[in-house]
């Protein structure tokens, strides 16, 4: 778990120097913070102090990644990893809540993600999107990654473009096209 900027900076330094296993250590260190972010996004919606705090943690990572001049491969890998962690936590949480509800009267949760017009946004819909995204990844992996980073990871188009070495325009087109494909997949 990364507790402060110094330790994070050191880990990034190790990645920059190409030290064996450094990337894995950086990812492992970030895991706890990423889980917090995912839970905050899932349960608190964003317009409160808690998410403001965790968003700052997120920004701290981005600031380090931007300033550290990590190789594009390392940066891409980190942001991709972060989005995958967020997605995993969100999906696990939704499934857990659904399982718990069978024995109680828990309230439904709403996922505060980027909107997917015309697509369901609550728990069932999130799982459907998760499944559809798995299928889409087999045909159009880049589109699926853009959706994962934006919908589950919360990254902006600018951040995704930088991470994936694409133009913002391409990211926007990918996002729009993916939305159309996912909409058709979920409609059937």
């Amino acid at each position, binding site marked *: 778990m990364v507790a402060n900027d110094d330790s994070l900076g050191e880990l990034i330094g190790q990645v920059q120097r190409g030290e064996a296993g450094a990337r894995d250590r950086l990812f492992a260190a970030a895991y706890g913070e990423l889980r917090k972010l995912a839970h*905050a*996004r899932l349960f608190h*919606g*964003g*317009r409160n102090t808690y*998410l*403001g705090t965790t*968003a700052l943690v997120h920004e701290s990572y981005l600031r380090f990644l931007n300033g550290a001049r990590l190789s594009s491969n390392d940066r891409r890998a980190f942001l991709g990893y972060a989005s995958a962690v967020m997605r995993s936590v969100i999906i696990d949480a939704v499934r857990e809540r659904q399982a718990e509800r069978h024995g109680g009267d828990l309230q439904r949760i709403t996922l*505060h*993600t*980027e*909107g997917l*017009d*015309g697509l369901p946004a609550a728990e069932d819909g999130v799982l*459907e999107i998760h*499944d*559809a995204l798995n*299928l*889409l990844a*087999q*045909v*159009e992996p880049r*589109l699926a990654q853009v959706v994962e980073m934006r919908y589950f990871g*919360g*990254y*902006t*188009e*600018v*951040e*995704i473009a930088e991470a994936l070495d694409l133009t*913002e325009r391409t990211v926007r*087109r990918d*996002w*729009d*096209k993916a*939305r*159309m*494909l996912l*909409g*058709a*997949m*979920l409609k*059937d």
Partner: protein
Amino acid sequence: MALSLAEIAALSALLDQVLALPVDHRQAWLNGLAAGHSPHAERLRQMLETAERGDDDGPSWPGAPGWGGSG
């Protein structure tokens, strides 16, 4: 989720073609696709109509709370 991987791939390729066209040329392109008995013509038309309706309704991709907007 009834679409097969082959259908998704076909729709994706067709979307690349139609989205590259100016908006006012797309209807003719769709008509041509339908005239050729493409099994995807009607679905593609619906997909485009849905997307256009979204555009008419306002921002298609509102910024997610807490994440600093849509970029």
